[in-house]
């Protein structure tokens, strides 16, 4: 009836003898209907052994991309290959079924089997092994992920962080040729997160396989990334090492997706490399902002994005503040949206949108025409390519 998959005795050893071959190549085009018209996924990249971060706002196509690699959905055309072997190739009309691909996939909702204990979940992918060997391997990985004490419990009886560990252990136990992790750390508190990252890193040292790690959290990019790929609306807009890609000016489309209410055209006035900042002049008026330093030349044009919720408003000139930018201005309009008040403040010709609570508006007795000060922290300024 059913065909069993045969796991090589120890793929880890096999891979370490030929480390170059454990490369994941992905070239995918896929169009599919979407609430706002047709979505076009069109990417091409290679991922070597180690962590590659897929970074992008929600709706950038990250999960669809992973599904295509895992074989859970079909691309329109392209090629997916692991270690030189085709898993999908539209030209050769080759399409290996998901269950034969040996690609580990931990999806966002974890999908632990509710009717199986933690140990049975972890052993689920090992059914080709003899029972003793399967138990040995499950126990080993349960130990590595420090969840040995949970082995008899059902998923409904363990905490969120532990479930995340079980899901990871279940996938890693099968010794996949590549690993796809769709926001596996989302919804975890910081200590849980960093200990899980440590365990994952440790596992990765012993098993050198490509790991695609999806996140929209910047901190995770720096904590994990050997390489980061930035995805926006189905396309790769930047790829490289985290400190290069993430610190460089980004395209404004990314900013708009992540919701910057204030976007200004600016030009660079001066670089302060010793302080890690630079001064930018907002070209709509006279305002000068101190912003984080990016790779840019004096005189070059950029866009500066600031979230309305990151701005402070003061009715008297504030003193003794750590924030570098305190801009005098006048309230032009106050607009109430649900429980948020949006104050539009004119500062030397540039208009800032500042979000306040109703209580703040009433306590400060804000009204159009009032003189106020807008406070902008340096690191609330996000720089983008013009």
């Amino acid at each position, binding site marked *: *009836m059913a065909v069993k*998959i045969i796991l090589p005795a120890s793929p880890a050893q096999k891979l370490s003898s030929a480390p170059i071959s454990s490369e994941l190549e992905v070239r995918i085009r896929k169009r599919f209907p979407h609430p706002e018209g047709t979505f076009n996924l069109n990417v091409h990249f290679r991922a070597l052994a180690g962590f590659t971060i897929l970074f992008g706002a929600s709706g950038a196509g990250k999960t669809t991309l992973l599904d295509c690699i895992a074989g859970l959905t079909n691309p329109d055309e392209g090629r997916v290959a692991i270690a030189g072997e085709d898993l999908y190739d539209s030209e050769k009309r080759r399409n290996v079924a998901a269950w034969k691909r040996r690609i580990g996939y931990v999806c966002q909702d974890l999908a*632990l089997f509710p009717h199986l204990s933690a140990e049975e979940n972890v052993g689920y992918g090992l059914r080709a092994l003899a029972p003793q060997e399967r138990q040995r391997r499950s126990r080993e990985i349960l130990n590595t992920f420090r969840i040995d004490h949970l082995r008899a419990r059902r998923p409904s009886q363990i905490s969120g962080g532990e479930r995340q560990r079980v899901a990871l252990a279940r996938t890693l136990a099968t010794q996949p040729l590549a690993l796809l992790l769709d926001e596996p750390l989302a919804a975890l508190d910081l200590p849980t997160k960093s200990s899980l990252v440590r365990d994952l890193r440790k596992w990765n040292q012993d098993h050198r396989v490509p790991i695609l790690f999806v996140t929209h959290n910047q901190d995770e990019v720096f904590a994990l990334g050997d390489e980061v790929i930035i995805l926006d609306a189905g396309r790769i807009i930047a790829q490289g090492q985290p400190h290069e890609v993430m610190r460089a000016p980004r395209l404004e489309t990314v900013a708009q997706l992540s919701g910057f209410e204030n976007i200004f055209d600016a030009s660079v006035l001066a670089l302060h490399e010793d302080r890690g900042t630079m001064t930018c002049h907002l070209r709509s008026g006279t305002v000068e902002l101190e912003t984080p330093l990016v790779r840019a030349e004096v005189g070059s044009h950029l866009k500066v994005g600031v979230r309305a919720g990151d701005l402070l408003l003061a009715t008297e000139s504030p003193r003794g503040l750590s924030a570098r930018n305190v801009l005098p201005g006048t309230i032009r309009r106050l607009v109430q949206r649900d429980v948020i008040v949006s104050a539009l403040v004119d500062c030397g010709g540039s208009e800032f949108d500042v979000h306040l609570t109703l209580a703040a508006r009433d306590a400060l007795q804000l009204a159009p025409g009032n003189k106020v000060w807008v406070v902008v922290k340096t690191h609330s300024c996000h720089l983008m390519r013009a």
Partner: protein
Amino acid sequence: MNWEAFWLTVRLAAIVSALLIVIGIPIAYWLTYSRWRFKFLVEAAVALPIVLPPTVLGFYVLVALGSRSPIGRWWESLTGHTLAFTFEGLVIGSLLYSLPFAVQPFAASFGAVDSSLLRASASLGHSPLQTFRRIVLPLSKAGLVTGFTLSFAHTLGEFGVVLMVGGNIPGVTRTISIDIYDQVQAANYSGANLTALLLLVISFLLLSVVFGLNRFGANRRPSAVAPWR
């Protein structure tokens, strides 16, 4: 109280619902996961016995089992007698009659298994059939029991199909509902009352099991998509 008819009916219902587990699971599997464009036609055909008068169903089964049809002739050449007016014929008629009562709960419970579990199983190296056996079936226990119980109860109370296909042969095809009819015809109301009450109580208990099970045992989520090929 005609215990012969009672036990014959219970035997018939048990055989039919057991066979429907075997037949119904593959059909429900196909109905749940097939992406065939005209699947709805099969769905409609399976549901037909719900709305069709039992006499119509019984009539066609009788014709199909009779010595003029290929099936009837084949059976006759095999066994030397026709299927019509036998217990075996009754089983076949009842299988069709109760098919939707097994298949629909099966398909509903298969479809309620979260598709992300099926995707996870595939990425852990399990074929669609292995996934079905190790994930879908265990998580569909309530649906399987529901289908079994409903088809049992439905077969227990059938009348029209039995009369058309089986006739009224004591010990062979006379079921409990036909016995009630006979007793009423013979103006034996107290006998009919006793038998009818027994059928009512049994049916109520069986349905209570079904609803109790779905009330307390189910953790269902909507929609399922088969990720496999």
